[in-house]
């Protein structure tokens, strides 16, 4: 491939979806330009041009052409940057691949449960707590005794889930729960992932995420 590759990632640091793309790019050793877009306060022209449909991050721009939606981006990265002893995220067997896609799809629901804890009040928060803990326990049972959801190596489901680890502290603070107490094996798994440079470089400081959510709550008028 003689042509120079231009890879740009539009992202905002607290986004777990953006973290997925960052981990995937780092795992494959792809050099890219990181462009930060403050989607809360100021969506830029570039973002609106590259993702006119959803106006959201992350957006991967490859040689000028955009790819949107985090799981679509991760699959694209997996398919495009293949070979040469690079890691592979999705299993090669179609049935295993379908299972990995199912769990990644399910993981998106987990973020919605967690969201209830910090953006809602009263009963909705309790509901969110239960749904979050139940879904994390389900993921824990899926992991079983494997080091990663992908088996011996980080895979698609690991990349889809591990970004939420940076949000656990926020859920714990607002929900008054301990995720470590509820799902110790899952937290072990997350710490194992964090030993990888691709993951620990992508995930922000959980306390910073919490401060960000405090700001969001004020902005949306949740805290009276």
């Amino acid at each position, binding site marked *: 491939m003689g042509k120079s590759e231009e890879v740009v990632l539009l992202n905002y640091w607290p986004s777990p979806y953006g973290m997925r793309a960052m981990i995937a790019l780092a795992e494959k050793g792809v050099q890219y330009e990181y462009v930060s877009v403050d989607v809360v306060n100021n969506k830029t022209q570039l973002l609106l041009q590259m993702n006119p*449909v959803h106006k959201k991050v992350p957006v991967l721009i490859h040689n000028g*052409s955009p*790819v949107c*939606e985090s799981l*679509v981006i991760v699959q694209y990265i997996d398919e495009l940057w293949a070979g040469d002893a690079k890691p592979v995220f999705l299993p090669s067997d179609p049935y295993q691949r*379908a299972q990995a*896609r*199912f769990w990644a799809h399910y993981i998106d629901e987990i973020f919605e449960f967690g969201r209830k804890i910090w953006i809602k009040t009263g009963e909705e928060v309790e509901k969110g707590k239960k749904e979050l803990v139940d879904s994390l326990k389900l993921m824990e049972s899926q992991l079983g005794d494997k080091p990663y959801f992908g088996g011996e190596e980080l895979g698609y489901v690991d990349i889809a889930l591990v970004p939420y680890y940076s949000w656990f502290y926020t859920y714990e603070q607002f929900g008054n729960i301990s995720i470590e107490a509820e799902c110790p094996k899952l937290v072990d798994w997350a710490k194992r992932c964090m030993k990888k440079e691709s993951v620990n470089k992508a995930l922000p400081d959980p306390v910073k995420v919490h401060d960000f959510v405090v700001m969001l709550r004020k902005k949306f008028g949740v805290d009276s």
Partner: protein
Amino acid sequence: MANELILLDTWVSPFGMRVRIALREKGIKFEYKEEDLTNKSDLLLKMNPIHKKIPVLIHNGKPVRESGIIVQYVDEVWHDKAPLLPSEPYPRAQARFWADFVDKKIYDTGRKIWTTKGDEQKSATEEFIGYLKTLEAELGDKPYFGGEKLGYVDVTMIPFYSWFHAYEVSGNFSIESNCPKLMAWAKRCMQHESVSKTLPDPKKVYEFILQLKKRLGIE
């Protein structure tokens, strides 16, 4: 290896229709099991314990869940017959993006049209038309979203064509007058036996939602 395929589904589900179209496009034989969603079978609860939803494709005893995932699975296993996803990564990413758009926007907004009234319904109808126009723009001058042939996005979206009449009557609007190119695309798809054999009579879909509204206690 004997290929045993069982599809747990219900006649009116646009999600189930996607799977049926994909299987029929590829000429794959399968056993269809109609589920009564008010009385889910033990098999469904066993095969999809998390969501308890249809469609579920059971291939040699192993379940595949979520319609988009099932269609991709079928496309990968029977890749030599009528491929639905593009072979190149970038067009494939675009196809996945647009299928995800249909999944996120069409069913839920459409549902608001027949479950609400007044301003809420009007707002849902406008939102729905907006999404259809976005799809129309993406289609452009191509005969299909997949280009010259039926593809992944076509299979994902076309089942909703059988629900258009129900949306139109409920929301008192015309999809044809708002999105003529999309209607032309839908009629083009209906010329495929895989589609025309799968999509139910729109009038039956409308009767179904009237009954569903009664059951859900919606006026």
